[in-house]
Structures are given as structure tokens and as C-alpha cells.
């Protein structure tokens, strides 16, 4: 499969946002569910135009950080800045309006909507119908299998196909920052490999990527910079190359 998503350099007009700075700064964030603290004083930066990854085992608080950024579980303390604009505690649809999209953990299809309807929802805030059609065409060109099944209910598709819909849906809004939560979860090694290539393609097209993963080796192979989260705290950080050598990374998993 040829990966050419989402072609922002050659077709900048259909994806917009080009050449803008797109970074997220997390400053001293504490997030809790009821009484259980999950994130404790997390500070990190998602760098413009790069793949920044967040590694950690189950329960480390990775998904909670994504939820905090999206405003689904707002932090109790701390700030979240997008390009120096404070979005802490902003309603989710307003965070999305800032140009942030998410490919959620477990893909989260709308099972009883068609592939096309799922993709269109990714562009819900886009009002220009011709732009939506152009982006649909691009997604269908990238994933020919989705083109064949555009009118099929998403819930009836295989996990790999749903992953394609989820990626396409995440790009339909033309985001400048894409949050990707555990893309390898529940997929066969072959699909995982393909998905990681696609994520590299997304970065190369100019979209800032924040990749949350458990799969250390494959993630560090494509990431530029990384953080390791353990017990709700950042325990290590550095360039991907440095992290590959770092004992802390492995300690966070096995220690």
C-alpha cells in the first residue's frame, strides 16, 4: 500500500493550516476521576511538525492526558496551551475548533453509521461541502478498501478496516494537531506496521502528532521526541534516539 496521507504539502489548499506553528504545552497538570488522582504534576510539550510520543504501561494515565487536552476530563490544576492559547477546561467542540483532532483508543467507530457518514463526522465543523468531498476523495484514494465499502455500516467491518476509517476520520477535519491514542491496540502486527508508516506520512505532511502508545520499540522508531509516563508522572524524556538507550523507559514498564 502506498502511503500518501494527507498530502498537505502538494495540496495545501485542501488541508489548510500550512506553515502555522502548532504546539501543545502541558503545564503542571493534575487530573483526577472522583477521588482517584491519575495525573500528578505532568508537564510536557508536543512539538510543532514532529511526532511526540507518550509511552507508558496500562494505567499510567496516558489516555487521561488525552482526555484532559480534549476537555473530556478537565484537569483540576495546571494549564494546557495550544500555541500559547489557554484551552484548559474548554468544551470539547471548542478544542476541536482550535484545529485539534483525535484518533481515539479502540478506534470508536459509530457502528451503525456508514463509512462515509463516519468520515463526514470527522469533518463536522467544516462547512464547505466541496472541501469535504475533496478530502473524502483523498481518504478513499489512500484507502481503496474504504472506497469499496463506503456505504457499509462501520460496525460490520474488520478491526483493520475500522482503523483505516478512524485514521481517515481523524484527518477529515484538516487538523493541525492530531492526538493518536494507542493505534496498535488490538491490531495484527501487519496492520500495526502499516499504521505506523501512515503516522509518519501524516507528520511528513506537516501535521503535529501526539502519539500515545505502549508499544515502545515501534513507537520510538518513528517518533522524534518522547516522554515516559509512570504512575501519573513523567519519569523520563528525551529524543527518540536517546530514549531507546534509556533504562528508565524499560523500568517504567517492568520496574
Amino acid at each position, binding site marked *: 500500500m502506498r502511503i500518501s496521507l494527507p498530502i498537505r504539502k502538494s495540496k495545501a489548499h485542501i488541508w489548510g493550516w500550512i506553515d502555522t506553528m502548532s504546539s501543545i504545552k502541558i503545564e503542571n497538570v493534575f487530573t483526577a476521576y472522583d477521588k482517584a488522582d491519575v495525573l500528578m504534576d505532568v508537564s510536557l510539550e508536543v512539538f510543532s511538525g514532529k511526532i511526540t510520543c507518550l509511552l507508558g504501561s496500562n494505567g499510567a494515565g496516558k489516555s487521561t492526558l488525552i482526555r484532559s487536552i480534549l476537555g473530556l476530563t478537565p484537569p483540576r490544576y495546571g494549564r494546557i496551551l495550544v500555541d500559547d492559547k489557554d484551552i484548559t477546561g474548554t468544551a470539547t*467542540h471548542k478544542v476541536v475548533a482550535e484545529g485539534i483532532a483525535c484518533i481515539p483508543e479502540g478506534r470508536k467507530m*459509530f*457502528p451503525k453509521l456508514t463509512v462515509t*457518514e463516519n468520515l463526514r463526522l470527522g469533518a*463536522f465543523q467544516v462547512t464547505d461541502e466541496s472541501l469535504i468531498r475533496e478530502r473524502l476523495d483523498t481518504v478513499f484514494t489512500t484507502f481503496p478498501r474504504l472506497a469499496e465499502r463506503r456505504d457499509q455500516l462501520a460496525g460490520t467491518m474488520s478491526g483493520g478496516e475500522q482503523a483505516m476509517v478512524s485514521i481517515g476520520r481523524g484527518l477529515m*477535519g484538516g487538523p493541525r494537531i492530531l492526538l493518536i491514542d494507542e493505534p496498535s491496540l488490538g491490531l495484527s502486527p501487519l496492520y500495526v506496521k502499516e499504521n505506523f508508516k501512515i503516522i509518519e506520512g501524516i507528520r511528513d505532511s506537516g501535521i503535529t502528532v501526539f502519539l500515545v502508545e505502549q508499544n515502545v520499540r515501534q513507537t520510538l522508531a518513528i517518533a522524534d521526541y518522547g516522554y515516559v509516563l509512570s504512575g501519573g508522572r513523567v519519569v523520563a524524556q528525551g529524543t527518540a534516539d536517546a530514549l531507546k538507550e534509556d533504562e528508565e523507559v524499560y523500568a517504567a514498564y517492568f520496574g
Partner: protein
Amino acid sequence: MDIGLFGQYLANGVMLGTMYALVAVGFTLFFGVLDVIKFSHGDVLMLGSFTGFTVYIGLLSLGIENPWVMIAAILVVSIITTAALGAIIARYLVLPLKSAPPLNILLITLMLGTAIREAVRLFYPDGSNPKAFPALLPTASVDLGGFALRADSVILVAAGIAVIIGLNLVINRTRLGLAIRAVAQDEETAKIMGINYTMIVLVTFAIGSGAAAFAGIMNGLYYNEVNFGMGLLLGLIGFCAAIIGGLGNIYGAILGGFLFAGLQTIGAVALPFASAYKDVFAFGVVIALMAWKPTGLIAERSSDRV
């Protein structure tokens, strides 16, 4: 049974089915987006009828007597008022209780319905007596072999079915409808798509309540009467129809509405000496149906939710 009587029953059944479907669609929409049962729905419908009646009295006092102008004004004011009330109920009573046990929402809307009903009875001028709703539609009729098909019935059914089809198109063909269906399937992912969740919930409650107001006006024009208690039975039947069709499913709600009207009609035909028992018969059959198919006739997994 002679063909004339059969025609009469059929026309009446289709009329009732259309009204019930309009009420049931509301129940199904509310359940779809929020997983709640809003028991004040029938009384909101009654309030829609009384709003319409008030508009009629107001227009009369202004000397406006053109029936089409009256009907248009009655519908517009009643639907807008009721839609706004639906959105207000969602915003201030239902959404704040979202994380509470579902029973609390059930109870609060049950109490609200009673409060609306009693308020109309006590505060509307002579509210405890039925009001004569005017026959504004042309009553000319064609004789179809012993059965007189009246123009007003035809217009009411046609308008009601048009509203049902319109609602269906909104839900299945528009951007708003796509957002409603997305919220119904997965609230959180819908938010991640950039959908303004609160707005969609309010709009859905407004649509469902507006449809109930339409049914209430239909009811008034057909029976030429409105009364403070009319929402009780209509609400219960609408809820029942939504359940028969598999709550959360819009086609099921429509089907359920017509099915219930069909049962009432069969009850009236089968018990000609005691047609007052037609509701007992219809509810009895529904009780048996529910015991037989506890999840509704159209199971949710084989059909779209909302």
C-alpha cells in the same frame, strides 16, 4: 361488517396512528440522545394544544377569522412555544441530572408533567372543563359507498404523515440528523468529532416536543376538544408505541404508533357492544407482546438507533 363501516374504522385508525407516531417519535428521540424517559411528554403535548387554543381565542378577539390564517398561527405559536419548553426542560431538568440514577429523571419529569397538568387545570380560565376546539378545516365530504370521507380528516392525516416523513428526512439526511445519530450512538466520540453535545440535546428535545405539539393540535382539530388531562393517555400511548417499536428506533416508533391504533380499532370492531373497552384490549395485547418480545418488535441490534 359493511364496507362503509370498515372505511370509517380505517380512516379513524390511520388518524390515531399518525398522532401516536408523532408522540412516540419524541420518546424515541429523547431516549436516543440521552437514554432517558421523559414522562412529561404527554403534558407538554397538552400544553401545546392549550397554547393553540389560546392563540385561537386571541385571534378571534382581534377579529381575524380566516381559518387558514388561524391554523397557521396556531401551529407556529404552539410548536415554537412547546419546542422552547422542551429545550428548557432538557437544559434545566434533564441534563443536570444526567449523572444521577435514571430513576431520578423519570421521577422529576413525572412530577413536572403533573405540575403542568394541574397548573393548566387551576390557572387556565375554567381550566378544569374541556374546551371546544374549533373545526377550522373544511368539513366537506365525499361519499364512498356508505362511508363519508371528510376533507378535514384527509388534510390532517396528510399533514401528520408529511411531518413524520419530514422528521425522518431531518434525522437521516441532514447534517443535524447525522449529529443526532452520532450522539445517540456514542456521546463521547461525538464530542471528539467537534459536535456541540449540549446544543444537539437541546435541539433534539425541541424537535420531539414540537412534534408532540403538532399531534396535540391534530387531536384538537379532529375531536374538536382539548382538556387538561388529554396528555395522560396520549403520552402513555406514545410511550407504549415507542416501546413496542424498540425504544430508540425511529421507524419502530412510527410502526408502534400505527400498530397501537390498529389494536384499538380491532378492539372497537371486536367489541361493538362495548367499544369503551378498546383501550383495555389494546393495552392488554401490548402487555402480552412485551412478555413475548421483551426488547420490542424491532430489536435494536438489527436496526439503526434513532
